[in-house]
Every structure is written in structure tokens, then in C-alpha cells.
């Protein structure tokens, strides 16, 4: 690691960081879009009220 210059380390690290961050953002966008699509599909399959338990009145 000593043979690699500090500048290369810094720039390389930045490049990896930036690249990974960009990929992460793109991935999140794609994932979110996919999630929305899947949720719609699941809503069609299971209906919406399966996502939450409804509160019901209880008796004495």
C-alpha cells in the first residue's frame, strides 16, 4: 500500500465512493420502481387490507 501514492489512494477512494454511491442511487431508484410495481401486483393479489391489522372494538 505504501507504493501507491497518497494522491492515487485519495482519488481512487473517491472514485470508488462516488461510483458506489451512484450505483446505489440508481439501484434504489430501480428498486423503488420495482417495489411499487410489486406492491401493485401484490395489492391485486392479496388486497390492500392485508398490510395492516385493523383495530376492532373489543367487548367487556
Amino acid at each position, binding site marked *: 500500500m*505504501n507504493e501507491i501514492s*497518497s*494522491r*492515487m*489512494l*485519495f*482519488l*481512487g*477512494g*473517491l*472514485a*470508488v*465512493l*462516488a*461510483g*458506489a*454511491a451512484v*450505483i*446505489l442511487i440508481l*439501484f434504489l431508484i430501480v*428498486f423503488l420502481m*420495482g*417495489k411499487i410495481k*410489486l*406492491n401493485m*401486483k*401484490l*395489492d*391485486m*393479489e*392479496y*388486497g*390492500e*387490507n*392485508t*398490510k*395492516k*391489522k*385493523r383495530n*376492532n*372494538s*373489543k*367487548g*367487556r
Partner: protein
Amino acid sequence: MAEIIASTYEVIERIGSGGGGVVYLANHMRLNKKVVLKADKRRLTTRPEILRREVDALKNLSHTYIPQVYDFFVEGETVYTVMDYIEGESLDKPLKRGIRFSQPEVIRWAVELLEALSYLHSPIHGDPPRGIVHSDIKPANIMLTPHGHICLIDFNIALALGEENVVGRSAGYASPEHYGLDFSDDTPMVDDSTEVMTDTEATIPMSRSEYSSSIKKIVVPDVRSDIYSLGATLYHLLSGVKPAKNALDVEPLSEKEFSPQIVKIISRAMNPNPNLRYQSADEMLYAITHLHENDPRTKRRKKIFVSVTSILAFFILAGAFTAFTGLKRMEGEQRALTLSEYSHNALEEGDPVSAVQYALESLNMNRNLFTPPRAPQSEKALADALGVYDLADGYKSHHVIKLPSEALKTVLSPNGKTGIAVYAFAAQIFDTETGEIKGELPLVKSALSDVVFIDDKTLVYAGENGISVYDTETEKNLWSGKPATQVAVSADKKTIAGVYRDEAFATLYGIDGKEKGMVDFAGKKQKVLQNDTFADPEDNILSLSADGKYMAVSFSDGGLIIYDTTNAQNSIELYDTSDYTHFEGGFYGRYFAFSSTKYGSSVFAVINTEELVQEGGFELDSRIGVKADETGIYLSNKSTVVKIDPVSGEQTEVAYSDSDVRQFETDTLNTFNTVVATEKNECVFYDKSADLISTLGGGQTDCSLVSIAGEYALLAGIDSPVVRIIKKDMHSDADLFTYDASYPHDEARISSDKNTLMFFDYQNVRLYNKDGKVIKDIKIPDAENVYDQQYSKKSGNLAVMYKDALRIYSGKTGDIVTEKTNLKSVFYAPYGVSILNNDATVSLIDIDTGEEILNEKTDGNYAAYCGMVVNDDFLNGGELIGASKHGDGYLFAVANEDICTLYDGDGNKLFEVPVAEQSEAFFTDSSVILSPLHGTPTAYNLSDGSKKNDLEKDSYLTYIYQLDNGCVMSEYISSGGERYAILLDGERYEPIARLPCMTDLSDGCAVFDYHKGKLRQTRIYSIEELIEIAKGGDAK
């Protein structure tokens, strides 16, 4: 007319009937509210308390999906239950019509049903602790309201309460437990005598073999039975097909038609083994309400999300960490460079201690991941600060004293071990060896305030409380007298004189502090500036003779009088008044020597105080400086300092500098070395023979205050608060060889066997053996035509090359080993000298043996062997500027105009790099260095021709050595003719040490020639060794 029941309920219509009775829609006559009347005609075998319990259980139920029970009464033989009327229809009806419900719808109803069941099954609803079990869940008992919600009706509470002979099994929906079947595998086997609760209607013919796990015992439906029934109901609602009556025969729903999760939930709910079903409605409700989360697609997506984000998070963290590390390292590198600059500056300012400290900080001892590799600049800073490669004898910076304000005067004790620096308005006492401040003496607030050493430990000073004598060892004042600024001490140390500013008298004291008398100046005053706080005109004489008998005083009116301190009548008036403005002088025995200066011209004279005659003198049109003590009279004028005999006037040179002398001092008690401060702001040291010892620059300080005594000297300037302690540094322990210093030579080389040493230049060669005996003196013939000389360490031979001749001299005897003349060309490479003979053959001559190791035919007027014959044709107008062996092959460099091409030994072109005129090529294992005659040498990588670094500017590169440790030693001649070497780190070719006057490398040691008759050597230190030296506090 409508039937009225219990005088309250008006029957509207019959809405259903079943095994338990009839169900009516009625109107509560008083409340005008529709209700459901359930008439139960079963034979009331139940005891009243059981009925009550049933009622109590039902009336307390209040849930969105369960109809409220309002009343219970008996009329005739019928038990009526009054409950909420639920609008809508039971789910069996649309099923019978063939309607298929959507999965989302069924799931929604499942949630509602499970919420109702969870409520029902809750233990708070009484006895038994398992709560209320519906026991008859089926589509017919589920109402679908117009709003699309469900309501669970028709509880078989009696069955739940354990009534006997209760029939409530709906085929297909009833769990195996309803039939008394128990498929749980953790119940013990019982024998055939166990009674099974069955009903003739519901009897399921089965054999033991069909129900391998069927147990014949009394089983009671529980909450899990409701789970089964619910599962079966959902099965029917989804598929439109009623499940098989036999739990084991139920076909699972198709996962192609329905969601696999739903299929799994229903299958589990309908597991014949109650232990394998959902154990509670809540559990099943949880499964149903988490379909999204538990969907395989969701799970898969979640897995993908987690793994991808984990990987990306790792890369982000790794990238951030790497960038942070790089940034910290870059900061560290910058800091190291800055600190190495500080070190360099401190060294320039004469503070080697601080220089070493900065250099060590620059190297950063605390090494961790964030520490950058050690910078070559840091290594160089430490090597330079430690001075490990400066083996020249001389005065060198030792310590620095930083005063609170600009220096006014400096004084050294006679032995040089204690120094005084006067500033406004105190005198700082310090140890010259350690630089430690020993004390401070408050002075009169005047720049005139004097400090004079009486002996090595005692001094007299113009203290703020009066003239005082101080003992530096006990750190105490011995006595104090009247106020004084100027002070004088007789050489016999018995008399002290003090004058206060421009008072017209001097007070005399004995060494014990007793007043011996006064000398009245009769109104005359010494020259004192109007504001003497910050400036001492240095124009005055106040001097005592060796025995204290006479006192010479100069005055502001140009007067100069020698007073007899014992007899006022005996005074010698040299000038009563004059227009001289500056006086210098002192006593040497019975002689008083002085100079008086006006308008740049000076008069010098020597007065014999016993005979009252002037012994001699002269006048010059430049300033004459005079110092006198018991050892003699010293004059300075322009660039010369001489010692003058007071009688004969004979002058002996003490120092001769190349610029005018501003100030000088001679150590007349010890070494008779002289320090001269010149107009060029240098301090030059001479030995007693007036030979130059060393020169120190003043730096930015106006270096005019000089003192010298013993091994030490002080340098300071009135414009700086810094006082430099200089120490004489001797390195005779590094002596390697002694030679005749008068022999002129440029180079000194040692053979690798160390048996011979050769000193040579282009005209002469002298060969010594290791014992210092001259083996041979050689005059090189035709010296003006010599264009190169190369020494071979292996044999000690010297090759002298001309354009058309070659002579090789033996390194053992000095005799000529080989002589070739009348040649067409001569070319030197480390592996041999190529000569082109007149017979069109090129020979390669081994320098070590003088033998011809190769001979090949060729054409042209120039040829050299570089693995192949490189002749005019190949060169095509270019010039062969260097060659070397490289592994098993050869490399050579050809310069053509401004391009240099590297070839291998087969003539294959490797790469091109720019080159300046008249360049020479040097080779190491990994680099080629092109060195122009005028310009900066540049190193290139042999692998690809990429530039490595520029080498030393403004000097001429003469040789390159590759050391075993990978470093490279580059030798230079400066523009001033000084030879030196720069040690380069092997990777980046950055300087890591400067070796002034290095002449050779021998056995890993650097050999230095200061042209003073000694060769000295020191090993090449690694950075770790330098650090150890620095930490050991041994700065030199």
C-alpha cells in the same frame, strides 16, 4: 296478523332454519328495531345454570364482526335468543349460485373472520380458559353485508360448553376433532376400548390402517378446530368447491390458480393434525396480514436489496475509508514537506538542534495506516541537520539563543564555555556547549551597558543597581558600586574602571569592589548618543593598561587622553580636541595602540606610555580597526587583519578575506584563531597561520557582532534577537588517508582492494600506496588534448582518453598498461573503451587489463562497440552519448538534435526522449540519466522512457553510482568548482542527502576530500540509523 313473541317481538318473517331451530326476523316493538330471533327447539336437557352461562357468554360479546346478543328468554318449550339483525346474505348463497369470489376479497374476509375469532377465542371471555369456540364455521354462518364486510353468526355455543349429544358438524368444514378423530402425533396410543364420540350421521367409516395416526380417545374441538373450519370455508370461497369431508382427502388448492402463500395458509389451517395447524386465530391472522411481507417475491427482493446495499455500502465505506486515508496521507506529506522546510531554514539560521527536531517531526515516528511513506525531503532534512556527511574541520553552528529583543553585544568567557548576550536591558548568560540559559543580569537601561569577563567564571557588568561583579558559578553578585555604563578591566584583573554615560569622571575599583579612586575628566565627556537607549555609537575608547596604572579615554570633542590613575599630573594628552569622531584601541604592555577616524580616513599610532613617545603610526584613507591586549596589537583595514609589531611596525597577516572586514576578534588566550565579520555578511574563521578554516553565512542577520574564545564563537547582529553559538568541529577520527595537500588534483580515488589511491587531474597523476608512500608521479602527455578520464575501481587503472589516442595507467605501478595512438575515434563505456583503428577495425579495450577483448571490422570514421558495432551508418549524423551493459545485453543512447534514442545491443529502438545539446548518458539498473553540459540532468525509466525526475540544477553531473541498497549516488561539480554528491532514493530519484566534497565510494563508505591533506570517510547511513543518531542527541 304477525306473531308476537314475548309481547315484545313482532315476527316479520322466517329467515332460516337448521338443526338447532328456526330463525326469525322480528321487530322489537318498543325499540322499533329489527332483530333476529333464534328459536331453539332442542330438548332442554341443559340445567338452568348451564343455560345462564351460555347467555352470559353471549351477551358479553361485542365485536364488529359478531352480532350482538340482546336477550334470552323461554317461551313455552322454546328457547329464544335475540340478537342483532345482520343485513345481507350468508356466503353459501352466492356459492350456490356459482359465484366465485376474488382472492383479495376472500383474504379481506379472512382477516375479519380471524379478528372475530381472535376475539372469541380470547380467554377473557370466560370459562373454559380457552374462550369461546364457534365450532360451526362455514359459509352459511358467515353473513356478507351490503358494505362488503362479513359477520360471523350462529355460534354452536352449546357444543363449546361441552354439552353431550350435540350435533354440529358440517361436513367438509368440520375438523376431524368434530368427529372425535385426533391426528395429533404426540398423544399416546390407547386401546380399542376407548369410547369415540360419534354420531350416526357423522360417522366416518375408517380403518386403523387408513388413519395410521388416528387415536381412539375422547377429543373436544378447540380453537384449532375453528381454524380448520375457517380454512375449509376459505377453501370453498376461493375454489368454489367444498372441501372433502375427510380431512385426509382434501385436495390442496392449486398454486397456479391461487397465490402459493394463500394455498399454504389454507393447507396449514386444514391440517388434519391440530398440532400442525395455526395454534390460534392470532397466529393465522398474522400470516394473513403479512402476506405482502412473506410473499416469496417480496422476500427475494428484500434479499436482493440487503445483499446489494450491503455490497454497495461496503464499497462506499471502503471508498470513503480509502479516500480518507489518502487525504490524511496527503496532509501528512504536506506537513512533512513543510517541516522539512522548517528544518532547512533552522539549519540556515544556524540552529541545528531545531533543525534536527523539525526533521524528526517531518519523518513522523508514529507510523500507522494514515502515515504517508517517508518523504525523501524529510530524510535529506535529517541527514543535513545531523551533518553526518560534513566531515570538514571548521566552525559550525552548534546552538541558537533566542533573545527577547535584538542583540546589542556578545561576549565569551576566556575559555569560551560561557557566553553573554546583551539585549535591552539585560544580559543573558548561557552555557555554550549545551545552549542552556544559566541566568539573566539586569543592566542599566542603555545600549552602552557593558559586560566584561574578568576570568572564566567572574564578570563585571553595568548593572541597574550600579557596576557589579558577578560569579557565574555561584550565580551571585559579589559586589556592586556606583552607576556605570562603560566598563574596563585591567589585564592583571586587579583594577576595574566604570564611567556612567557622559559623566565627566571614571570611578576605579579594586577587584574586591573597594573604590580605589576617581579620574576626573575635567569636564570632558565620552561620546554618547542623545538617545543611548537603543544605540551604542561604538566610537569610544575606555581601556586600562595591564597593571591598571594607565587608563585611555576618548571624548566626544575628539579628545584622547591617557590618564595616570595614580597621578593625575602624569596624563598623556594625545588629542585635547580634534575632529576625529571614532576611536578604537587598547593597551599592549607598555604600548597604547589606537586609531582615530574621521570621514572614512584613519590615523593609526602606537604610544610608548613609559617613554611617552610615539613608536610608529600611519594614515590611511580607509577605516582602521584596532584591538590590543596583552598578546599584541591587531589591525584591520579593508579585507586584511594583521598583527603589528609596535616597534618595528612589522605586520603578520592574521586574516585575509575576499571582502572588507567590518569586525574581527582573535582568540588570543587559546587558539589564536580569528573570526572576521565581512561586508558580505559572512563570518570567516582563520587559524593562527591565517589559513581559512571555514566560512559561515550570516543568513538574514546583519552579522556584525562576533566573539571567539576556545572552541566557541558567537555570531549575532544588531537587527536580530538570535545569537548563534558556533563550535569548532573536528573530524580527525574519520581520517582515512593523509596526502600532500600541496599536490594539485581534481579527483581522489581508491582501488577496490584499498591498496592504492590515485590523485589526478587532466595534467597530473600521483599514485600512493595505502601507507601513504608515493608510488609514482605521472605527467600526462598532451594534456590539453585529453577529453576524458575514467578510473576503474576494480584495478585502480586510469584510462586517459583523447580524440585519437588512449592511454591506460596501471593502478598498481603507475606504468602505462596500454597505449594506442593514431586512432579514428575513442569511446568510453563502463564495460570498456571502444577504439576505431585506422585499419577499419573496432576494438574493445578492457580498462582493467588493457587487453583487447574484441575486434571487429567496420567502416566509417567513428565506431564503438555496444553489443553491436555502432558506426557512422547507424548513427546517421547522431552522436553516441553513452552505453552500458544491462543484464546480459547492452544499451546505448544516440542523440540526434534534440531527441535521444535508446537502443538495445541488437540495435532495436526502445524509446525516445528529449535531450539537450552536448549531453552525456549515464545508466543504472532501471534508469538512464541524460546530463547536458549546460542544464539539468533528467532521469528516465528504462522500462518505458517515462520521466522519473530532474536531478540537480546548476551543477555538472560527473558520475552516477548505483548502491547495493538501491539508492543512487550522483556526483557533481558546482558552478564554483566545488565537488559534491547527492544521494538519491532509488525509486523517485529524490535527494535524500548532500555529501559535500565527496570524492569516491569505497566499500559502501563515502570518501571525502577537503583538499587539506586528508581523505576522510563515513558510511552511508540508512534513515533508521539517522533517526537513532538524532534520538541519541548526537547532532554531529
